[in-house]
């Protein structure tokens, strides 16, 4: 009879290696990265351009995202509807978009459609027409999106938060997709110029992951790579200058809201920071895991919320460090007090070995689960390129995690969390929550409308 009372011990663990990959530079300067991962007959092609929103010119915020989205809206040969139809008849769709550090184009196909998909993708990337009508439509859709945010508390809190963390002149202070004003000012010719200067062969990497042979891929990708625009552009301004600030609460009024959407944080660290691993583990303990201090406190101890977490938004520049939760309105002040107490505790004493091992064993153990799909493998490879990480990064990852100690976690918290600078944004029922907040000690309170 089996022992059903005692927790079983793990069996011997099987080794896991991140898929091996080949890298080369094609004539013209485009890089090609190929990872054979033949689990199932499926392939992801991910093209990464050094054309992210961090470099949007002042007043033209939103141009990186709009350019990426408009890529699939037509070539000199096909209009947008025809392109969508062609890709979808191949069982895939072309996703294009931009975040802070890169723009991407991605398709996932069954092997029989690989050659045709790459050919069409090549046409799209080398010969986009940016039709006026479609550009105007995409601009209107962004304006509709901004309007939707006014009644969406989570989105509204996320949208408003960065303006309090960064200097006004910093790109990170403003919305990634641009404001109604900046988006309205974008023209077709500006988008075309943005494309010609940034979607160049030298700023492009083609990543192919899945059921493929490396030699085949090279032949298929070369025409695409040689057709891209040539040239270069200097990197612009720093996007991440923090606003000099002391603690403050910024209330955004939503009358009658049953919950308060809370964001607390300050500018964090750039992705390539030498303390990346200790900070990763520190954040896991503070608010990154279900069993983290903030979640256990706010959710499981107090029942204030459905969930609470902390995160670092890792970018080339110092993206936000932020604690995020939504609590029922009548406990807003109490919840904020707990959040500040947890932040202080993180800096005042070493984490227990139990907490440390929970975080490190989770991060080490979950590593293979992060790369089950061709799309996930391609994205992981893209991060090596975007953040200029070493080729061995994924082979070393678990070793780096295991080297983190309670002492380095404490040092990371003391060096990189600055309680005196924490900015708090709350979207909620100002009339109900304001008075209670005065005694929390989270700084001066200002109030703004939702629109």
């Amino acid at each position, binding site marked *: 009879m*089996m022992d*059903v009372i005692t*927790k*079983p011990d*793990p*069996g*011997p*663990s*099987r080794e896991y290696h991140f898929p091996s990959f080949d890298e080369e530079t094609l004539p013209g300067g485009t890089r090609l990265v190929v990872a054979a991962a033949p689990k*199932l*007959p499926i392939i992801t092609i991910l093209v990464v351009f050094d054309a992210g929103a961090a470099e949007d010119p002042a007043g033209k915020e939103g141009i990186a995202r709009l350019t990426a989205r408009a890529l699939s809206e037509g070539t000199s040969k096909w209009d947008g509807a025809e392109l*969508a*139809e062609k*890709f*979808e*008849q*191949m*069982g895939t*769709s072309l996703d294009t978009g931009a975040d802070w550090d890169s723009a991407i184009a991605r398709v*996932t*196909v*069954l092997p029989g459609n690989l050659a045709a998909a790459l050919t069409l993708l090549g046409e799209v990337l080398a010969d986009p027409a940016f039709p006026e009508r479609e550009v105007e*439509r995409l*601009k*209107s*859709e962004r*304006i*509709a999106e*901004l*309007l*939707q945010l006014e*009644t*969406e508390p*989570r989105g509204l809190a996320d949208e408003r938060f960065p303006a309090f963390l960064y200097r006004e002149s910093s790109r990170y202070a403003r919305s990634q997709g641009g404001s109604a004003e900046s988006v309205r000012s974008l023209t077709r010719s500006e988008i075309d110029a943005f494309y010609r200067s940034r979607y160049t062969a030298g700023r492009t990497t083609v990543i192919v992951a899945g059921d493929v042979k490396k030699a085949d891929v090279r032949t298929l990708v070369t025409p695409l790579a040689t057709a891209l625009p040539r040239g270069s552009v200097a990197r612009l301004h720093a996007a991440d200058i923090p606003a000099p600030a002391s603690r403050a609460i910024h209330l955004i009024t939503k009358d009658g809201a*049953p*919950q308060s959407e809370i964001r607390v944080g300050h500018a964090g660290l750039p992705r390539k920071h030498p303390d990346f691993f200790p900070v990763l583990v520190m954040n896991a303990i503070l608010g990154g895991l*279900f*069993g983290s201090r903030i979640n256990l406190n706010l959710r*499981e*101890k*107090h*029942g*204030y*919320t*459905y969930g609470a977490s902390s995160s670092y938004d890792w970018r080339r520049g110092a993206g936000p460090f932020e604690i995020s939760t*939504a609590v*029922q309105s009548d406990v807003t002040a109490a919840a904020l007090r707990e959040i500040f107490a947890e932040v202080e505790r993180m800096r005042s004493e070493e984490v227990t070995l139990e907490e440390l091992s*929970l975080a490190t*064993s*989770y*991060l*080490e*153990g*979950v590593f*293979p*689960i992060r790369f*089950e*799909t061709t*799309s996930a493998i391609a994205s992981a490879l893209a991060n090596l390129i975007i953040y200029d990480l070493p080729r061995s990064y994924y082979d070393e990852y678990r070793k780096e995690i295991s080297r983190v100690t309670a002492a380095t976690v404490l040092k990371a918290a003391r060096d990189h969390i600055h309680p005196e600078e924490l900015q708090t944004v709350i979207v909620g029922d100002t009339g109900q929550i304001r008075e209670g907040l005065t005694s929390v000690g989270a700084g001066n309170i200002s109030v703004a409308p939702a*629109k």
Partner: protein
Amino acid sequence: MRIPIETFHLDNGLLVTLSEDRTAPIVAVNLWYHVGSANERTGRTGFAHLFEHMLFQGSANVTANEHMELIQRAGGTMNGSTWLERTNYYETLPSNQLALALWLEADRMGRLLPAMTQEKLDTQRDVVKNERRWSVDNQPYGTMLEKLQELVFPADHPFQHSLIGSMEDLSAASLEDVAGFFATFYTPDNAVLSIAGDVDRAEARCLVEGYFGSIPRGKGKPPLAPMALPPVFGARRRDIVEDEVSLPRIFLTFRSPVFGSDAYYAASVCSAILGMRRGSRLHRSLIRERQVAADAAAFTFDLAKGTDLFVVDVTARPETGVTRLEDEVEREIDELYRDGVSELEVKRALALIETDLVNAMQSAGERADRLSMFATFFREPELVNVQADHYRAVTSHRVNDFIAERLGEDNRATLLYVPRAGQGTEGVLAEAASEA
């Protein structure tokens, strides 16, 4: 593409499916209990979901929240979810930790009640009330599921009431309710266990028998109120909700063939033709050409009993009024009803669906979940492999039969969200107008 599947029963009625894939040292464990909000009694809306939360509060040999801690410490991920017809619990973890996941699932299936306390129930009740505030009450269109259920199902139908539950009913839930629900529904003969990934099948079977074999069979569950409904509503239905939203949004809903039936596959293909990706009819027409919509989609609920629902979901652009939105969507459906679909449209939908099926099977968790789904609803996990064939057999002729039968005026229910009066969208509207 076919995945390997092995199926067996334990003497206590637990149905077990295994799918071996040795590509990476990962294993997924997935349990479906054939109980959902449909099984709740009057005055206890939301209880199936509250109960799901209680399953993470420990069992005889596991302390509160230890389940999550042990899985995360093992390097795994886990969660659970509740739906109208079922509740599932799942873990994906390093394959040498399979025994841990099975032990945890077996302890709460066999020995939950010793760990239940009033304090835990009170805390989880507060958590769930906050989940309701977060996902329903303080979220634009968040009441959609509740409002739709009320609109399309008759009052005494098991699918008619709220899944997340009312605040009042959540407050009323007691420890006796927990005990009763557990005894009635959380039994091995009302569950399916699926394991997918890096497993030795003989070893897995041995572990399953060891951990789950001694859990007693249940005493049967009370029958649900009659589920069957006529294929069409018979008359138009309509509900208008004034809400804290910026843009009008319509959910035009039809009764549709139940999940898994032959006609279901035609309905599913039809929903892809109408609303899947940018090449779909709604996207081409309402977003790209006529520019009256900001978003457009169509989908089926995939309900396996009574009736399924086929939903067309379109959000207006700021300059599109409510009446215009409704007219434009109705016009699209009328056109579809009049002219049907072409073989080329079916081909596009099938190509997308096929890639999606293969894509989904890459993840061990997804594999295990689909095995559990087919095993729970039809006792036939092999349907995972047959599903693609069912789709491939769909022709324009069959889609047009579905359309003729289900998309007529006698089968339309309109749930319409409109911005609350005085919402004050004038600023952005003026801005949008200046664009034109």
